[in-house]
């Protein structure tokens, strides 16, 4: 057993890590324990988000960290690597392992390894109601006795078992690390002992677990040992000598056997399991009915976000609050008090930080994305997305993506910037690039959709727009999938049971997403206002506009629309909105409207999305996608224009 050497002193709050596989209700438990508030932050050097909050355990305050999903001790995904690193480096005072009650058989092996790591471990067995629905009864006292650590059954979504968990955590914190020391079989135990005996330095994790990881060939563990040991070559020499053939299989096999043996005494099947696939499930994954459901979901999404959110709420905030009250008041105030025109234009005027940046952020985008995030949390929590992913996997494979990519693509209909961040869930680098490309090129965000819908003259034009944009998107994605190197995608996805989303959970998710949005995206709108202001003031814009006027006139649009295309980069829908104004003023024909709407949809993403692309995919890829989007947009605009001229429209 190892001891914690905390340099920071006793008065610092204890650190508690929440560890567990994805989809076990870890985050819900986190919100229940912390009450409400969490800081979402990036783990240094990575793009993985972790949440940190404070929890009160009977007057003792602890720092609670919600780590990214981790299913086993072998770290493969970026998420798992971060969680493992935190387990090693934060020197947690307590680890709460959250497992799904219905899937204890595959999750308890990690609990056993955490105990071997010398951590204080509390096991939270979540969603025990689902286990009962499956026809089982569980004896948690027996599980506690066999594992030798506190076990707390919970139903996080309903807040059941949270108080019990709190007191179990407090008790564990006050005690010493304990728990079942497993016997991994003579051969493995012997190898572990030999490796552990040559580890002489101090480690934040038990030598036993470290030895196991070294035997598994874990690079992170080897790095740690090489740094800490005076003679690291002794270890590497020993590791070479000890046979490591099949260690992983042997370890997994033993842990699975031990787990099965424990569960034999814990789980009691009280009645036969229900039908494995319900009617609704069959309905959702059937290609015919499933497609109908998808269509219905998209229509409902449009009605909720596009009509209620984008039209009703936005109209009120935009016209009544900003245009009607704030902007005129601010402008007249500024005109009276500010002697400098350049300063006036920075804050107010037509493109100022308040009159444009904040108005745009709070009156247009925020309500739209709020509505979208609410809708998306329903879709997400109901378990619909994995069904949709499997339904559409074969289609997306043709474009080099796996079914999982449907999640960022649907999210893109709300906010392409956030969707670009969400491409992290995709397994391969190639998929991430392809999905980012599709989002940048042809998936219109809710803000842009709103204006496009309003602008298109009639159903006929709408249909042409949908066909052209989706057609171009498919063709470009197909060609790109042939050109971008990398592994072919694979599709493996857990199907959680379908359930009715809990309002509390939905509210939590929506709030967290909105908070992210406010912190990450709103500053970029302010920045956009400043850039527009600077661009206008210095005359750079005039130059870019004259340059853009060439392709714009080439695709048969009036010269004035070049302005809209430039501004479209700063605010994706403003490009469309600029065209909208031109159309309303009667400056564009039917043909020109259609050509311009198609072009602006395919045109480059907004500045926020571009910056996120830069961060997530790197400079080269982001710039390549940018150039591709501009080229494709104008090329398609040109072709559509020529065809329509030939057709005499």
């Amino acid at each position, binding site marked *: 057993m190892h001891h914690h050497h905390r340099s920071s002193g006793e008065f610092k709050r204890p650190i508690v890590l929440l560890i567990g596989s994805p989809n076990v209700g870890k985050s819900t438990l986190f919100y229940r324990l912390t009450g409400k508030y969490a800081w979402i932050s990036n783990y240094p050097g990575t793009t993985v988000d972790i949440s940190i909050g404070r929890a009160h355990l009977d007057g003792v305050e602890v720092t609670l960290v919600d780590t990214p999903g981790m299913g086993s001790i072998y770290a493969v995904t970026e998420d798992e690597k971060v969680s493992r690193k935190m387990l090693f480096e934060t020197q947690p005072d307590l680890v709460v392992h959250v497992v799904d009650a219905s899937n204890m058989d595959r999750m308890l092996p990690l609990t056993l390894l955490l105990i071997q790591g010398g951590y204080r471990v509390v096991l939270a067995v979540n969603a025990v109601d689902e286990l009962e629905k499956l026809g089982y009864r569980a004896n948690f006292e027996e599980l506690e006795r066999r594992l030798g650590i506190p076990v707390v059954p919970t139903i996080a979504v309903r807040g059941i078992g949270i108080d019990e968990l709190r007191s179990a955590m407090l008790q564990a914190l006050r005690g010493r690390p304990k728990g079942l020391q497993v016997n991994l079989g003579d051969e493995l135990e012997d190898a572990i002992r030999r490796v552990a005996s040559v580890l002489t330095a101090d480690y934040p994790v038990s030598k036993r677990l470290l030895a196991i990881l070294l035997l598994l060939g874990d690079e992170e563990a080897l790095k740690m040992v090489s740094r800490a040991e005076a003679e690291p070559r002794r270890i590497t020499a020993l590791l070479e000598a000890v046979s490591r053939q099949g260690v992983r299989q042997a370890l997994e096999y033993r842990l699975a056997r031990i787990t099965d043996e424990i569960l034999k005494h814990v789980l009691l099947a009280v009645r036969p399991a229900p039908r494995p*696939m319900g009617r609704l499930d069959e309905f959702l994954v059937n290609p015919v009915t499933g497609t109908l459901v998808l269509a219905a979901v998209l229509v409902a999404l449009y009605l909720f976000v596009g009509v209620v959110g984008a039209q009703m709420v936005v109209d009120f905030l935009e016209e009544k609050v900003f245009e009607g009250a704030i902007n005129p008041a601010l402008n007249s105030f500024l005109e009276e008090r500010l002697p400098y025109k350049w300063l006036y234009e920075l804050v107010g005027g037509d493109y100022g930080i308040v009159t444009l940046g904040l108005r745009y952020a709070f009156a247009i985008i925020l309500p739209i994305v709020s509505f979208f995030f609410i809708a998306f949390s329903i879709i997400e929590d109901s378990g619909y997305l994995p069904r949709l992913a499997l339904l559409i996997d074969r289609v997306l494979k043709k474009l080099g993506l796996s079914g999982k990519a449907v999640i960022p693509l649907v999210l893109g209909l709300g906010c392409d910037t956030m969707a670009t961040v969400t491409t992290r869930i995709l397994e391969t680098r190639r998929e991430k690039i392809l999905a980012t490309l599709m989002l940048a090129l042809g998936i219109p965000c809710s803000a842009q959709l709103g204006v496009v819908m309003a602008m298109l003259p009639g159903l006929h034009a709408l249909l042409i727009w949908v066909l052209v944009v989706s057609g171009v998107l498919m063709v470009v994605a197909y060609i790109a999938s042939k050109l971008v190197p990398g592994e072919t995608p694979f599709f493996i996805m857990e*199907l959680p049971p379908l359930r009715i989303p809990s309002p509390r959970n939905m509210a939590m998710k929506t709030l967290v997403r909105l908070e992210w949005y406010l912190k990450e995206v709103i500053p970029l709108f302010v920045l956009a206002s400043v850039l527009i202001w600077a661009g206008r003031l210095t005359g750079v814009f005039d130059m870019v506009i004259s340059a853009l006027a060439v392709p714009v006139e080439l695709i048969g649009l009036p010269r004035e629309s070049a302005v809209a295309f430039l501004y479209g980069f700063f605010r994706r829908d403003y490009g469309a909105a600029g065209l909208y104004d031109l159309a309303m003023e009667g400056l564009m024909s039917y043909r020109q409207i259609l050509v311009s709407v198609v072009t602006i949809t395919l045109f480059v993403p907004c500045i926020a999305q571009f910056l996120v692309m830069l961060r997530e995919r790197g400079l080269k890829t982001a710039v390549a996608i940018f150039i591709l989007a501009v080229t494709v947009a104008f090329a398609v605009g040109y072709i559509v224009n020529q065809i329509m001229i030939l057709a005499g429209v």
Partner: protein
Amino acid sequence: MSEKLENLVRDLWIAIKEEGREVGDKELSPYDLEELEKAGYVRREGGRIVLTNEGERVGRKLVRLHRLTERLLSDVLGMEEEVYERVACRVEHLIPEELEEAVCTLLGHPRLCPHGKPIPPGGCCLSGKRYVETVVHPLTELEEGGSGRISYIYVENPQVMTRLMNLGLRPGRRVTVLKRFPAYIVQVGNTQVALDYEVASRIYVVSGPHH
């Protein structure tokens, strides 16, 4: 059940059921007898050892396996008598239930072991099955509703392997195919997992008896 216990049940079945002998409770060590009783294979009746229903079923199965194994080793692998007798005693314990029918069919449902003793017939002999179906198949060859035990998983990508392991898809576990189209949906334990064809075709299962 331990190998030793299996051998005891097998020998008792031969003595009592085949040879019609009475076996006294002094013929076994008190410890072994206690173990057998605890496992529910035998009970004592006035100084005699009697097989329970379960003991009879298990004993018959073990005799069948032992003699089938002898045939397999002598007929197919061409082992000498003194070799196959020794090997059979060890190999028979390793043959999973799923393979028993396959071995029997492969050998053409033999009635007698190489020593001329009868092999208790199994379901396959009675139905007169002529061809051995491949015992290990990729998951993709199972029908909807079909199930099997995972024998091995063959993927190069360690990421795929770890994802499968984390979801409980690992050798030894029983899987059921729920859907084959538009993607594979399989059930393992209480987890349902969607897989594409490529991944599903890399998971090899020994198809089990139909439930």
